[in-house]
């Protein structure tokens, strides 16, 4: 089954919130997964793996956000991150930095490389699920133009995992909420 990118964004945002991330980071997670899917990558799978990991400041979404927030520093030299789970999810944040700086950025995970100019992405087939050292730097290489994808085809198990996390953001119904929460209550049979 294919999903719209809006569905991916919304599901990952809710799942990230359900996993315990603050709202602003959950928004980043949703957009990051969406961007990866638009590049033809498995953004849903990357998000599912990342959200299964620790929700501390070592979480890939938090580190990625820090990378984007400190984008200007990349002009002075590379940034390094240790022990990154699911570095694929780092790439959309590198893309944000590339957009802001209007440059190409390389993300090196223990020797496996990806490049993005913010719009397009190229990465090696063996891009790893875990990296001891991730080095992010500005490079002077143009990235080829890719045709963006408009649909995602997530693995059903990954999607189910995100749904389970998203469910944690929904309040269980009570009689009061059922009756008054949406504010209807009048008959619609008129």
């Amino acid at each position, binding site marked *: 089954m*294919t999903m719209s*990118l809006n569905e991916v964004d919304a599901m990952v945002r809710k799942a990230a919130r359900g996993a315990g991330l603050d709202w602003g980071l959950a928004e980043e997670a949703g957009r990051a997964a969406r961007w990866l899917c638009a590049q033809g990558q498995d953004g849903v799978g990357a998000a599912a793996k990342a959200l299964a990991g620790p929700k501390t400041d070592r979480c890939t979404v938090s580190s990625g956000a820090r990378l984007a*927030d400190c984008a200007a520093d990349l002009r002075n030299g590379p940034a390094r991150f240790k022990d990154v789970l699911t570095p694929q999810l780092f790439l959309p944040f590198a893309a944000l930095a590339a957009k802001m700086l209007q440059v190409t950025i390389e993300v090196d995970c223990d020797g496996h490389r990806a490049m993005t100019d913010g719009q397009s992405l190229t990465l090696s087939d063996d891009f790893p699920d875990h990296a001891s050292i991730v080095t992010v730097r500005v490079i002077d290489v143009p990235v080829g133009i890719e045709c963006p994808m408009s649909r995602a085809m997530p693995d059903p198990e990954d999607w189910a995992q995100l749904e389970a996390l998203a469910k944690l953001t929904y*309040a269980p119904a009570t009689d*009061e909420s059922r009756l008054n929460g949406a504010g*209807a209550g009048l008959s*619609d049979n*008129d």
Partner: protein
Amino acid sequence: MIARRSPDVVMTLARLGSLHQSRLSFMRQLTRRMAREAWTFRTHTFDIDDQGVGHAVYTAQGPERVYSLVAFAHDLPPEMRSDRVIATAWDATFTLFDGVPSAEDIDRLSQNIPVQEAGRVSERELTVSRANRSVRLWEHFVDALAAGQQPDPDQLEAVGYLMRTTAVYGSGKLGAADREVIENRPEMQAPFQAEMLTVYLIRWFVRDLVEHMARAKGGANAVRLDPGMARRLGIGNSTGLGMAPFIVNHPVLFNNWIMAREEAIARVRSIDQAAEDDVTCFTDLLGRAEISVAAWRTEHPVQIAKLNDLKADIGILKSHLMSVNWNAHLPWDDLLNWSEGHLSSEGQEWLASLVLEPYGDIVDGLCSCMADSYSQANIINGAMPLKDVRELIEQSFGWALAVDWADPAQTALAWYVSEEKLEPRLGNRFEEPIASYEQPLAPARDAAEAYRKAGKFPGDATTAAFLEKHPECRHTVRRAQMARFAPYAEIRSNTIASDVLPIDMLRAKLSFFGVTHFDPRSDRWVRVCMYAGAPYPLDLSSHNFDHWIYPEAIQ
């Protein structure tokens, strides 16, 4: 050039809850475009039985592309009729198909569209929608037409529509095409054009369906609906709390709507001399708009009071207009300045929309600025000095910094999503177990909190350093930075106060769709009317595409 009004004036909920349709409204943008481009319309299929069950397909052909409304008609037991999102069946269900559907497409859609949220659609579908009958008006119309009579105009006026939509989903919902798939098509560039086209075609289908049911009941005795009466029929829309968060969750988009209207008002205010034709156009449409106000029905005490204010305002305005010197400089600016001292918010906004009417040449170009195409708006600038973020918060939320957020009345409510069909709801924070499920829909409270925390940082700190320590302020900082280019992005009222009226948020959005006759059913639920007075697709022409929203006097 006269300046745009300040966001402090425009962005309070009381003001947003008084907005009216204008030339910039999305329904009117659509009919203008379709008439100018000479779109053609066709009934492709009408396969509905005597019980009113079956499907129909209507096509709308533009210069480059064709769109089809696929409608499914159902026989709904009364006990299942509910406008809420928790409903599972409807009188009719719809999708807007990108192109003309094949038999296989119809077969696929017939298994998915009638169940709405329980089904899935594809990238070929642009919207998914459903509607319920107004039971009393529907039965009256079928009975009258079946007996060879025209329906009673008073009953038509009391309700205004035969069916009301209870949701029109787009932008990738339920698997439909994302906005990005269609946003570069000229006819879909403005916001909500696919949704507005869906409803426009639904109105045509509903007219055909009621005539079909009258024929099924009355046989040879049945008559067709008088075209003049058909034209007065709109499509209702029943909108609940679920729509309210939209204007908070899309700050740049909402800014663009408000800013376009404020820019239009400022441009008209800046006109030095009013031409005689323009004054005539204005006074003519004022009279017609008054007919629409007279036909506006509501039982909700808040709206009754506002409607009475508006009717009184129109009287005051008409007597003022008798003494206006139209040859003076800046006549529209004078008139709007006068209105600020003499009319209620309802009256001021009604007038502000009306003065735009003669000036399509300087107003309509703003329609192309109403979409949100700035993809970098969400990127936080971590290098921005934190003191600048604090200044931006002061700009948008200066009023909120003075609120006592420890007062329970200021945080009495919390927005949350229920497990049941994911319905957005509003509950009492201190009486229901919902606070831990709260959605980020209280930007003012959160801004005050972030402002306080940022105040404890050194003056030369960066946004990045602040967010590393306070990730919980990230969504607030993102919004604050948007204020640099989106001055009308933030509502300047408390969205979780004990006395908040969510219907004000609903009305702000619906007014830009171009709806009329706001009829709140509670403080968080509203019924409205769409397309009443509009020419039907086969009658749409260069003579009737623009001012149809203003009823002509019945001879």
